[in-house]
């Protein structure tokens, strides 16, 4: 799923400083699963903003709503009858949400309430970790189910650098060296020789480096 963190309240307050009435719009997709932008978090943000603005002597009127998904026009459309009544909409979806909203309602203002960080999963309750960089050409099968593009700080394709130490990345003791894990799995399975095959330079055209990407599925596209 897409992982996100909520922006600092001060930053959100600054975005809406001229607004008197806003809509906070959650999303029932990934951001609900990673507890950052679902109905519950919409309620919390709403209360915090109202209290903060009341203290400032500039009360804020806030409506709350959570869509099935903000990355699908079918659901974004459902707010068309009420959107004109707000000075702005704060989207608690990933970075896709405010953009789909802006595209459908070009004369309205939309602000992001979260920082979208990565594609990943939950390690345990409250902890999410990156797993995929969306490079467009998956190479995980070469690396025993682990992705050095996303999980090596240098996206190295040919083994751990000289900074790998005790299973950790040179940049932080908090970050696992994914190459350490790949090598150890190969050793455990008696396939260390796999790593004597040098991987060619990656073709980044399918990644963001090739420009913004669009996927077209001819079989289902209308």
């Amino acid at each position, binding site marked *: 799923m897409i992982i996100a963190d909520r922006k600092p309240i001060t930053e959100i307050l600054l975005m809406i400083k001229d607004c008197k009435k806003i809509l906070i719009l959650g999303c029932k997709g990934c951001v609900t699963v990673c507890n950052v932008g679902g109905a519950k978090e919409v309620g919390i943000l709403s209360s915090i903003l109202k209290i903060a603005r009341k203290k400032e002597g500039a009360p804020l009127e806030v409506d709350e709503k959570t869509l099935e998904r903000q990355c699908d026009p079918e659901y974004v459309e459902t707010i068309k009858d009420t959107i004109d009544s707000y000075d702005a909409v704060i989207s608690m979806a990933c970075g896709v949400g405010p953009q789909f909203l802006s595209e459908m309602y070009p004369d309205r203002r939309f602000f992001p309430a979260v920082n979208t960080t990565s594609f990943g999963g939950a390690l345990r309750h409250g902890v999410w970790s990156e797993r995929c960089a969306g490079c467009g050409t998956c190479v995980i099968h070469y690396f025993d189910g682990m992705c050095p593009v996303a999980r090596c700080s240098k996206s*190295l394709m040919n083994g751990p650098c*000289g900074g790998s130490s005790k299973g950790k990345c040179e940049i932080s003791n908090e970050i696992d*060296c994914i190459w350490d894990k790949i*090598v150890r799995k190969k050793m455990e399975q008696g396939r260390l020789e796999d790593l004597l095959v*040098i991987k060619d330079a990656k073709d980044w055209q399918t990644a963001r480096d090739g420009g913004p990407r669009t996927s077209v599925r001819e079989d289902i596209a209308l």
Partner: protein
Amino acid sequence: MSEFKSGSNLEKVLKAGHFAFTGECGPPKGANVEHLKEKIAHLKTMVDSVNVTDNQTAVVRMSSWAASTIMIQEGVEPNFQMVCRDRNRLAMMSDILGAYAMGIRNMLCLSGDHQRFGNHPQSKNVYDIDSIQLIGLVKKMRDEGKFMNGEDIDVPPKLFIGAAANPFADPYEYRVYRLANKIKAGADFIQTQCIYNMEKFRDFMKKAVDMGLHEKCYVLAGVTPMKSVGMAKYMSTSVPGMDVPESLVKRLQGAAKGKVAEEGIKFALEQIEEFKEMEGVAGVHLMAIEWEHKVPELAERAGLLPRPKV
């Protein structure tokens, strides 16, 4: 056709079978050419070639190729370092051509320290290709006269290709494989990370020799003399991939007041003596960090002078 790949002094010294001795010089944090020339002067005639670091520890400095050309003007042969952190393949190839055009004949291919360590941690890193792919790229440019995409190069760069090896990083069992891959990719010579754990290095070299790697590539053992107990402790605890045995820290602590640096130099000299005899070791790479003025004394005491003329 020349018998040499690049014809650099380092290549000639190694091919003639001499025990090579290389130094290192970090370019200034600015355009202070005079300071750079001072550092270079300490190394002149003392070593066969001098590594010119490329924004080492991810701190911005004068570009390695520019400092290398100044070194050439000063009559010292540079070993131009390039890291994969700051350039994509276009910039790498164009700098390789430029470096060769300016007279550079040795090049060391490195991954580079992550920018988080440096003075611009906000920067975007590149890592378009990794160090092993960079070695392969330089070899392709030199031997096939082709760019990465297969197009012909009009006058290919003839460089003596170097790479680094860190026997002390983890996982240890894999490290000799990485060395093998760097050699397979095209490394002509290897300079190792600073060695302090001699026992581990002996084992690493034995593994390399068993794989026949010493016959395909020249391995230069990395030496950095310890200046103080603090430096030893810092290196053992805070520098990833560095292995400083407790016995060395104790030895330095046991030195008389004001004699710690001398003890560090003594340890380095003992290492060099052992490397001269160690199977598979073709020379020493001395990284006297901000201690360039000590290199002549070290070279003299290590019996490495005069440097061979080839």
